[in-house]
């Protein structure tokens, strides 16, 4: 243990400047966080302007500076006892590899993880979210940061001679990532690699975690640098292969087993959405929109599509089958109208455009059910909401109050702060007043204000405890004010609003199952296509 402390103490003495910079950046980030969400609640005010432009920019800058400061620090700490080469001062001294490794872990833990944890804890606390109840999510976030950032940096530092070489290697890695993205994109065009299923594409993080850990341990325990370099070179290929593997039909079928959703889809006669085809992302394909009507969904039940795969058949023979595409066709509840976008091969499109075909569509669906409803009263104060976090009112300046002479504030929406991830999928409904809230004032208007219900969906069914983020708060705006609301009245005081005390109901939905189901449209006719659109692309 003593040796671990001696090495860490030496690193602290050597890198106090890097540590001070890193701590300062994290401290500023923690200081700015609350201002950011407080300003964001003041929609259309000078605070909002600061919140809309200044502070988010500074936050963005800090969110880039923090990893850069970590990169510098980790690289310097690892290179202090360089693992590459045969002239280092420490290799013929009584260093024990596991103690050296532990010392580096301790140094990084003290000056990277601990300040991050403190900043995240403080931000959660200040945001009104109890950090202790989000320990699991915090740990998961740190695991993601470790897998995606810290370990790759440490692994590259472990197999490089100095900071310059490491920087060059990192540039190489970026080029490799770009190449992989290009290859993936090229394969995507050919329909080989594509996944509609976000939730199953989680192999990358464990792969990074395992390979980078092996590289670091090989370097420290055995100083097997060449092998580590080979592993790091192989890693992008493995990541690419994992993408291909996870995107395969077999994996989608496994994640979304075939089942009976009990939903009936029928083609809806909606010329607005079905009048013409459009160029798709791939030049070889066209995008058509098929209007649908979904029935058979039980009350309190919700279906969300995550992917779709289409087959065009004619005369009982399949002419063309698409790949799995990520497709979102809305939140399907009770009787829903929706439109499904389908990419169709141009060749098939032109071949069968004039004749009726059979269109078979397979959908990957998430089923959710209504879990819990909670009603709160609109107020200018922060309101905790289960599953969502803490919501504060989105405020716009109203008119000048005739009695007090002060500008009144009007609530037009919510800003909900959730810990470390999107809020759980929630249906929000509120009473919306089409005029002033106070009866005494409303009396002077020709038309008395009407109250109606407005609703919105926020959040997702994603069940990951945390998304990769240095910032521990996800701020989700929920603005009930639409563009049409501004045009109706010129008086600021007449902007529709949520009156203080109005009920806001939050209905949470939770994932029940995932399944794959399909429907068939006989005598389907492709819409027309204007080839001039190709020239406009």
């Amino acid at each position, binding site marked *: 243990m003593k040796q671990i402390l001696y090495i860490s103490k030496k690193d602290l003495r050597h890198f106090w400047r890097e540590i001070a910079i890193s701590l300062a950046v994290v401290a500023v980030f923690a200081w700015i966080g609350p201002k950011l969400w407080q300003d964001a609640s003041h929609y259309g005010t000078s605070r909002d302007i600061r919140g809309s432009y200044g502070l988010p920019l500074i936050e963005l800058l800090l969110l880039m500076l923090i990893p850069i400061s970590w990169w510098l620090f980790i690289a310097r700490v690892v290179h202090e006892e360089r693992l590459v080469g045969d002239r280092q001062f420490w290799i013929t*001294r009584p260093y024990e590899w596991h103690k050296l490794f532990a010392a580096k872990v301790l140094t990084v833990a003290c000056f990277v993880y601990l300040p991050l944890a403190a900043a995240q804890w403080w931000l959660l606390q200040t945001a009104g979210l109890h950090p202790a109840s989000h320990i699991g999510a915090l740990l998961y976030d740190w695991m993601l940061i470790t897998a995606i950032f810290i370990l790759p940096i440490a692994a590259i530092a472990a197999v490089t001679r100095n900071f310059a070489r490491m920087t060059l290697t990192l540039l190489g890695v970026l080029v490799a990532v770009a190449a992989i993205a290009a290859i993936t994109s090229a394969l995507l065009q050919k329909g080989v690699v594509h996944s509609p299923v976000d939730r199953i594409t989680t192999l990358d993080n464990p792969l990074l975690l395992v390979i980078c850990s092996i590289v670091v341990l090989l370097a420290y325990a055995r100083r097997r640098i060449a092998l580590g370099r080979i592993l790091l070179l192989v890693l992008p290929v493995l990541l690419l292969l994992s993408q291909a593997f996870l995107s395969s039909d077999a994996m989608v079928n496994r994640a979304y087993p075939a089942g009976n959703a009990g939903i009936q889809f029928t083609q809806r006669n909606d010329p607005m959405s079905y009048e013409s085809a459009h160029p798709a992302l791939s030049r070889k394909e066209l995008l058509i929109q098929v209007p649908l009507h979904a029935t058979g969904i039980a009350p309190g039940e919700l279906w969300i599509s995550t992917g779709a795969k289409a087959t065009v058949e004619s005369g009982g023979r399949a002419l063309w089958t698409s790949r799995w595409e990520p497709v979102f066709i809305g939140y399907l509840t009770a009787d829903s109208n929706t439109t499904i976008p389908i990419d169709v091969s141009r060749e098939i499109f032109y071949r069968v455009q004039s004749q009726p075909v059979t269109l078979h569509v397979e959908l990957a669906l998430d089923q959710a059910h209504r879990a819990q409803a909670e009603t709160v009263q609109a107020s200018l104060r922060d309101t905790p909401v289960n599953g969502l976090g803490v919501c504060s009112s989105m405020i716009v300046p109203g008119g000048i109050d005739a009695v007090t002479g002060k500008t009144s504030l009007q609530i037009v929406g919510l800003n909900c702060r959730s810990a470390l991830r999107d809020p759980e999928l929630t249906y929000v409904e509120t009473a919306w007043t089409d005029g002033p809230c106070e009866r005494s004032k409303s009396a002077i208007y020709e038309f008395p204000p009407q109250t109606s219900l407005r609703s919105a969906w926020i959040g997702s069914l994603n069940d990951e405890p945390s998304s990769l983020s240095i910032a521990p708060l996800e701020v989700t705006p929920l603005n009930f004010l639409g563009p049409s609301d501004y045009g109706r009245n010129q008086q600021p005081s007449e902007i529709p609003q949520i009156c203080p005390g109005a009920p806001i109901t939050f209905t949470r939905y939770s994932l029940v199952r995932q399944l794959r189901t399909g429907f068939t449209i006989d005598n389907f006719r492709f819409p027309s296509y204007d080839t001039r659109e190709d020239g406009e692309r």
Partner: protein
Amino acid sequence: MSVTIQTRGLTKRFGRVDALNGVDLEVEEGSIYALVGPNGAGKTTLIKLLMNILRPTRGEATVLGIPAARLAGKHFNRIGYVSENQEMPGWMTVAAWMEYWRSFYPQWDAALERQLVAQFDLPLKRRLKELSRGMRMKAAFASSLAYRPSLIVLDEPFSGLDPLVRDELIEGLLDRSPEATVFLSSHDLAEIESFASHVGYLAEGRMLFSEEMTSLSNRFRDVTVTLDGPASLPANLPADWLQPQVNGAVVRFVHGGYGDEASERAIREAFPTARSLSFDPMPLRSIFLAIAKKERRQPAAAMTAAEPGRSVA
């Protein structure tokens, strides 16, 4: 006498190049062993293999009874290693450097540390990167001697140092030598001649010989044969008669196997008209030059065949 360092068939290849080729070596406990040879002979490679900095391609080595390939961590409590090429953390002051190592060695002798700092006149407050090369070597020496290691391994420690610094380092080393085995490499023969007890000669990755210094000095003689008339070299000269030269009635050569009366008898048989013979002791430098030149002419294990009974690799 127990053996501190032992190698058997130690071989190291870098690609297609044999940096070290089947080296057998024994270093006795308490000796000051000087590994000499020209630049590129494989001295540093051998030392790095012994210190487990490099891994051998073939063969094995033990250091202080421990297989060299397993040398790590606590084993270095008993080994002091200083190399001319060793990197040092330049940001540290000399005091911080000594203090840092003090905490690593349980047997660190603070009194000896103070003595070495004084002896080497080390400026404690200066950063290592601000020191001259000689001063840095002194700091490395002090930090490697203060824990009284059983084995001191030095790779070209005096290379490029001025004579004063060199003498100071040698003095510091000799002070420690009664309690430690010293294994050092050098291509400067003059600097090791005065204090080495054993010497090994490495050329092109092969150990040409390894023996006690006194034995080596006794074995080599500069032989001058004066004949009655014009001299000529007999055919089939013995392999250990090196660098033969004829100048009128005088024949000169280096005898690499000089021992007793038998040597003189053999010379007289080769030169029956010899009027006088003289056998002059040779400085180490001349001995190695003779060997090196012979090696260049016939790159083979020439000395080994010629010297039965000697500890030749």
